[in-house]
């Protein structure tokens, strides 16, 4: 059986290419039909905030690329409840259908995957 990979994305979408490069790992793996999960942690939860206007920063919109995750077969999507709360984000108004996890659930999630990449 293919080994599973959890990608932990920790950077805000406006903080350089990191968020996009984490997403690219997920999309590439999805194209190979691998068992993948993606967790948005720390500033990475800002990627999920709705109503962003990246054009004002002369940046591309990451949200459109994030929407491709389920189409690429990456349906295990998670966000850290604590990270959301710290940043004043409401888990019910996010751009992606993520499961919001508390710290204990995060530990279980990370333990469940064979490999973990944090970016």
């Amino acid at each position, binding site marked *: 059986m293919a080994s599973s990979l959890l990608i932990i994305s920790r950077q805000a979408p406006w903080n350089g290419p*990191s968020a996009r490069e984490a997403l690219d790992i997920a999309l590439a793996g999805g194209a190979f039909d691998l068992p993948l999960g993606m967790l948005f942690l720390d500033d990475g939860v800002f990627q999920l905030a709705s109503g962003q206007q990246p054009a004002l920063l002369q940046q591309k919109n990451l949200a459109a690329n994030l929407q491709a995750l389920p189409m690429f077969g990456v349906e295990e999507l998670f966000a850290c409840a604590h990270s959301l709360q710290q940043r004043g984000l409401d888990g019910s108004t996010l751009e992606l259908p993520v499961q919001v996890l508390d710290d204990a659930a995060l530990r279980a999630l990370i333990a469940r995957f064979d490999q973990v990449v944090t970016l």
Partner: protein
Amino acid sequence: MKFAIAVFSPAHAPSSRRALRFAEAALAGGHEITRLFFYQDGVHSASANVVAPQDEQDVAAQWRSFVSHHQLDAVVCIAAALRRGVLDEAEANRYQRPAVNLPKPWELSGLGQLHEAAQVADRLVCFGGD
């Protein structure tokens, strides 16, 4: 044990040096490195144009000689490398850039190589990251 090692930081970062020392120790301990994968700013760890001060470690040169000496499979992500100006001869020609800073033993390839490495190895160990 089979290790795949991913490096996300440039040669001047402590984590690139730690990754190299880990890789050396893995081989010295009788383990196998199935692939090294350089992504994000890690592509700078493979650059041939790094010039370290004389009284400091030249980690980029150490990576190069380590990979050559052990004939390791060392992949640099092409998308991450192009974005950061780390080019082999083919890409420098393709985009008409004046310099090549990724000669052999490195290989430019895609993210599929990271996934394949994660599948083949017993452990994927990452260094750097934000």
